[in-house]
């Protein structure tokens, strides 16, 4: 992918900045920052997963929060039954998430365009209601985890360590995706984005490529969901609410669709804006009060404006500036 110097500098600054967050937080004595930025990294990871189908494959999945939920519930349910081993949880989560993605993807990919959007949304909603009806595991209210996953010598109760685990996973997935989109597989996938019929007549089994991309992107979200459960020590159906799927799309588009760094930039920007608005102090008490309570309305307007004005996203704009 040809990228301008500005885009390259932006990517390096963003990744280096994220690496320094715990040190900065310790320096200014704001331990809350580590938690906030762990959340950002987790959503960045999920948005990056979504971007594989959304940006590189032009499949608008409105249901990826479902896989966040599967990851989170895999940790929650296993720990409820006394299985704390992180690797076991990982294997179970990836197995369940992979199977669900294979089934859901195989059905959804029979449709395209509008129907694909709606049916992925409907499947996510189905899983949401399934989680709500699991009374044993907290039902609508969700449940508190007894403990975080055990990963050998790594103690996830240490916030800094959890942060760097999320960061390492993000970098690993970034690197893997970088190779993936350059590979033959990635070329075929991007070819389908431009003209699926042509790819099919060139002899590629496009369905299989798209389904593989869908499953890979789902598994990345499962991973993010597991981190999420470990961060909050809590799982609830709200992790897979349809608004979360919407937010993931917003992050991807805001950062730059079909770019590798875009989702990370988008997740950082959106979550920081949300945090900023919900604790904004302008000095006018009633206005502050209104904004802090109803900041979602401003986010709504913000999203509409991003769609209307900033068509390529933050990072996408930097990439496109030169070419």
């Amino acid at each position, binding site marked *: 992918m040809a990228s301008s110097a500005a885009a390259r500098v932006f990517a390096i600054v963003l990744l280096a900045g994220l690496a320094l967050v715990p040190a900065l937080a310790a320096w200014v004595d704001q331990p809350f920052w580590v938690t906030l930025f762990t959340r950002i990294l987790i959503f960045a990871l999920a948005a990056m997963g979504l971007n594989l189908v*959304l940006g590189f494959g032009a499949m*608008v999945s*409105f249901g990826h929060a479902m896989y966040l939920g599967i990851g989170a519930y895999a940790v929650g349910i296993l720990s409820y039954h006394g299985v704390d081993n992180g690797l076991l949880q990982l294997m179970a989560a990836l197995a369940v998430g992979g199977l669900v993605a294979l089934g859901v993807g195989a*059905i959804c990919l*029979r*449709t395209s*365009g*509008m*129907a694909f*959007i*709606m*049916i992925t*949304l*409907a*499947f996510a*909603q*189905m899983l949401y*209601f*399934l989680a*709500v*009806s*699991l*009374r*044993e595991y907290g039902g609508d209210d969700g449940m508190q985890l007894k403990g975080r996953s055990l990963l050998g010598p790594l103690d996830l109760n240490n916030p800094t360590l959890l942060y760097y685990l999320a960061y390492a996973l993000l970098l690993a997935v970034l690197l893997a995706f970088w190779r993936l989109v350059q590979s033959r597989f990635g070329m075929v996938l991007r070819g389908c984005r431009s003209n699926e019929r042509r790819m099919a007549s060139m002899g590629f089994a496009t369905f299989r490529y798209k389904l593989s991309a869908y499953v890979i992107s789902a598994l990345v979200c499962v991973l993010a969901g597991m981190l999420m459960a470990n961060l909050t020590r809590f799982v609830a159906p709200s992790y897979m609410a*349809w*608004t979360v799927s*919407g937010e993931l*799309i*917003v992050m991807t*588009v805001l950062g730059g*669709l079909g770019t590798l760094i875009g989702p990370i930039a988008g997740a950082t920007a959106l979550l920081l804006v949300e945090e900023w608005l919900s604790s904004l102090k302008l000095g006018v008490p009633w206005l502050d009060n*209104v904004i802090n*309570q*109803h900041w*979602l*309305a401003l*986010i*709504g*307007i*913000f*999203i*509409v404006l*991003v*769609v*209307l004005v900033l*068509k390529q996203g933050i990072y996408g704009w930097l990439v496109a500036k030169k070419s």
Partner: protein
Amino acid sequence: MTTGLFFTQLLNGLQLGVLLFLLSAGLTLVFGIMNVVNLAHGSLYMMGAYFAAAGFNAFDGSFLAAALVAIPGTLLLGLLIERIVLANLYQRDHLDQVLATFGLILFFNEVVRFVWGASSVYMNVPSWLSGTVNLFGLPYPSYRFAIIAVGLAVGLGLYALINRTRVGMLIRAGASNPVMVSALGVNIKGLNTLVFGLGAALAGLAGLMAGPIVSVQAGMGEPILILTLVVIVTGGIGSIRGAFYGALIVGIVDTIGRAFLPTLLRELFDRSVAQAVGPAIASMLIYLLMAAVLALKPQGLFPVKHG
């Protein structure tokens, strides 16, 4: 399981079905003719219900006043949304439309929280519909029966409008080839606005009718929006006929499933298993139905025939 209870639930399913039809007819028309997905349709339904409750309470319990506030109010709001936001997105891809209307949902939810507060607003059934009607010896609430009647009347009216009038002919033509229709000298932009307004007014009507039987609160549009999407996908995108049958099927399957599936499972399985699995399967039933329909007929049950 008595027959009487079954028929009451069947009617409840029918009532949910016609409510879903009011919403999906508008959404599917907008999609069919403009190729636009409007997730904010659920917000229009919510605003319709809030407008109705506001009118109802301001004019000391007059249902007519509620209707006169809700339907034109939602119509106006819909036209505003179309002009300000969606008209700029007709040429863009579905992703942008989904995102922008998602933003609108967040916006409207907070607006009603700001104006009417976080707790739900109530609206009573009008006194002249508060009794029950006798259907073959079965008492059924008049208001719910009225919803069914209104929904079926709207269905008939839409059928006549689409298939028997000049405007309807243009709408059908616009859905199959908008470029050709505009080349023939029809104001396709005006037609778009008209269809969008019609859809918004139907959403407002649905909000008005639902107002007295659901709790009117922020976010009430989303669950029903998702059901509406299920209806449209099951019925076949862009088809009014598909929306009608899809809405009735989804409404009835959902209601009957929730009412009887847990009891049915209790007879087949262990009590504890049935109690755990019953509600889960019941709430997933329509999605399973949709998945089955799409696996067999990806275009939906009643696909639109173009060309």
